[in-house]
């Protein structure tokens, strides 16, 4: 994220606290929906700042968010999205890589910690080597895909007013999670062929490199 976006976000996070509880749900849904659009993060923050100002100004007049926004929240968000400049194809590709690199270095850090603990417990030398099996790589890919789909699903359905049957929702989530866990367990158990075997320091270097590239991409394209 660029410095300008960060500064805007910080300012918006501060202003956002003034939004009354009764107006927060609709405001949050609008922001989540806008987050799922192809606007740059900078433009998302600009719009978010305007929305916060409108809502707080309305609150000061005694108007709630329904009065200020006019109740067609999704249509308003769609109009805003269609008006604002969208990311170019290159920016979209770079955003994809930024997200993927971010997920990889986070998973990489988790795996390094896991390997360090394992090595210290088993062979009393945490820095021996860093191995990745085909199963662990496949599981990493699954986690990245599931995270991407989940974020996209949440943003696209933020305005769904259909009352969810809590039991059905629980059953659906339980079945999907069970399937994902089953596939990941199967993969880590059976796909144990070691694809990467490098020193721990080299692994840490790669993670730092991915982290740096992700931050650079994020600053330029978000």
């Amino acid at each position, binding site marked *: 994220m660029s410095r300008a976006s960060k500064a805007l976000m910080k300012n918006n996070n501060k*202003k956002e606290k*003034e939004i009354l509880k009764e107006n927060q749900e609709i405001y949050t849904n609008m922001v989540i929906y806008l987050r799922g659009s192809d606007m740059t993060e900078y433009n998302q923050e600009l719009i978010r700042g*305007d929305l*916060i*100002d*409108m809502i*707080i*100004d*309305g*609150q*000061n*007049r005694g108007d709630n968010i329904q*009065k*200020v*926004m*006019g*109740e*067609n*929240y999704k249509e*308003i968000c769609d*109009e*805003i999205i*269609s*008006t*604002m*400049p969208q990311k170019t194809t290159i920016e979209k590709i770079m955003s994809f890589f930024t997200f993927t690199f971010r997920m990889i270095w986070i998973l990489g850090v988790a795996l390094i910690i896991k390997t360090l603990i394992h090595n210290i417990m088993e062979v009393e030398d945490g820095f021996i080597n860093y191995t990745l099996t085909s199963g662990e790589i496949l599981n990493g890919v699954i986690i990245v895909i599931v995270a991407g789909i989940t974020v996209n699903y949440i943003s696209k359905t933020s305005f769904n007013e259909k009352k969810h049957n809590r039991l059905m929702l629980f059953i659906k989530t339980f079945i999907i999670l069970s399937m994902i866990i089953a596939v990941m367990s199967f993969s880590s158990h059976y796909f144990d062929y070691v694809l990467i075997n490098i020193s721990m320091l080299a692994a840490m270097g790669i993670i730092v490199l991915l982290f740096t590239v992700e931050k650079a991409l994020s600053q330029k394209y978000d």
Partner: protein
Amino acid sequence: MLKGMLDGCILQVINQKETYAYIVSKELAKCGFGEISEGTIYPIILRLQKKELISATVKKSNSGPSRKYYKLTSSGEEVLKQFKRDWDELNNAVGSLFHLELEGKI
């Protein structure tokens, strides 16, 4: 057509004095446009800004957060003049049509 009309009417309100979105919606309501929320006005204002027909200045408010005040640019003034000409033509055309009906010619 109605969407374009609202754009023109918002330009006209802003042309009268530098103002912010809430006042635009109130002025339109006063003229008989009914309740048009600030949320409905906001995307149109963004569009007018994108077309560089209006420009925004952030000003501090005594009663809450800073407000964005809008004023017409020179292109905005030209577009507003054209909108008024188009509206006159349309108004005359529709008027003539109703006049013919009154005279029993259609």
